[in-house]
């Protein structure tokens, strides 16, 4: 057992850091989730250490570590650096092999990535300039409603008619939410309306790369069941959402590390920037 080979993927996002440990048979043996503070490098380290603990292994047993995500350059203990676009695509196809389009909604950005049958990235489109439609948008609106983001999914399931939300901007949507509450609209209808508005924005981003058959939804916001429902309603089809969807970037990173090892490369002493 001692000579078993492990790899890791550490995905440092704007809001949370995620780490995954994979064994050489591609089994996920450990994972962790860590909130991100202004000291990003420390948070990346903590996420990695926690994932090793979860897997019950020593960090020395990890042969290769990939850093990915917005804070990937802060994964200083890693040897491979891969963009989160490549990693989310890789992770999606690892869990759902027929994925042709990955929608990744994180704390501060949204990406639509179109994939070929062998996992190659054909096209992608992203919004990282504006917080509308991101996790941040939901945080701000949940605050205005006096709820936590975790409540939003179950709340919107009680709604029969979504309240139309016309503001795109997070700041203006917050005001609109308060105004709608003052007008006596039900909180669940407002939440449902917010989900519909995010779904619409996400779909227009996906259209830019071309909506393909099998869609996989990744990133922290994919845990929101109300948004999943709104997306499925508007798309007229089911989409893949895994309980691990938040870790898909980290999983993809770990797969990249394993592939490097399998190719016989050991970039342990030099940092490689892989672009695919």
């Amino acid at each position, binding site marked *: 057992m001692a000579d078993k080979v492990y790899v890791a993927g550490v995905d440092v996002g*704007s809001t949370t850091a995620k780490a995954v440990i994979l064994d050489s048979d591609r089994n996920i043996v450990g994972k962790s989730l860590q909130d991100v503070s*202004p000291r990003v490098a420390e948070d990346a380290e903590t996420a990695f250490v926690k994932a090793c603990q979860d897997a019950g292994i020593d960090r020395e047993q990890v042969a290769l570590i990939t850093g990915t995500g917005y804070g990937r350059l802060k994964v200083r203990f890693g040897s491979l650096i891969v963009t989160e676009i490549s990693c989310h695509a890789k992770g999606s196809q690892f869990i759902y092999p027929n994925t042709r389009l990955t929608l990744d909604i994180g704390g*501060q950005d949204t990406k639509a990535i179109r994939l070929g049958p062998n996992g190659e990235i054909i096209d992608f489109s992203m919004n990282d*300039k*504006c*917080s*509308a439609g991101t996790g*941040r*948008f939901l945080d*701000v609106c949940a605050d205005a409603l006096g709820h936590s983001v975790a409540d939003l999914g179950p709340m919107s399931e009680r709604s029969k008619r979504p309240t139309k939300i016309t*503001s*795109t*901007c*997070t*700041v*203006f949507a917050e*005001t609109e939410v308060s105004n709608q509450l003052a007008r006596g609209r039900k909180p669940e209808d407002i939440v449902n309306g917010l989900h519909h508005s995010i779904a619409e924005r996400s779909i227009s981003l996906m259209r830019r790369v071309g909506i393909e058959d099998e869609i996989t939804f990744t990133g922290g916001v994919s845990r929101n069941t109300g948004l999943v429902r709104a997306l499925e309603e508007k798309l007229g089809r089911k989409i893949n959402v895994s309980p691990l969807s938040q870790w898909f970037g980290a999983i993809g990173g770990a797969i990249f590390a394993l592939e490097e090892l399998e190719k016989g490369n050991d970039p342990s002493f030099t940092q490689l920037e892989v672009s695919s």
Partner: protein
Amino acid sequence: MITIGMDIGTGSTKGIVLEDNQKIIGRALMPTKGSPSAMATKVLNECLKNAKLDINEVDYVASTGYGRYMMEERKIQISDLTTTGRGAKFIYSDYNPELVLDIGTQSSRALRIDERGKVIQFKMNERCAAGSGRFIERCSKYLTVPMEKISDTALAGENPQRISSVCAVLSETEIINHVSLGTPVEDILMGVFVSIADRAGTLLRRLKMDDDVYLAGGLVHMPAMKKALESVLDHGVHSHPDAHYAAAIGAARLGYQRLMKQRAIAQ
């Protein structure tokens, strides 16, 4: 002849009492809270009181701004773009204003006007909070600097801190990081004004900015805003104590025109 112009904005409601199309004899300004129609009535009464007039002595009331359709006392409602252009032309009549910049609570607009104050071209942003007064209001909240001190505090900033995010919400994270790194709040605030000025500059350049800029709207009475605009624009920036009332003044003047026309037809 007494005409009143009421500008019911997202941030504040302004009222102007105009005598014979020339002389401002009363005014009032209050933050917009609750129903816009009740707010309009309140400000209307306030500016009547200020002018020492009774509503029966008023010949015409024109409304403008986002809540213009909700004012029951109005005889006409006019788009705020139109009234801002006319109002700016009036308050800056000593100059020859061609470019007007109007920064409000939820929008920013750049207008090109003709010699009568008629809008011939405009660019606006009302979909994003980054270039508007709301951004400042939010900063005031989480940096705990009251709105009435925000401009003076910013003016004390010696090294304005560049804000790289173009989104008001994403900027918050950036600002909080600056605070935790020990950047003086004065420098951060001046940076916020500069970032709003940058966005206004983009709007003005889309109008092929080639001349001085004349300010209107709620944010521009803040000296820090004027200073920030001067630092990013290549042309002169003019402000006026009545700049906040530009749209209300424009409404009162257009109301007067309309009244004159009606009377001419009646004769």
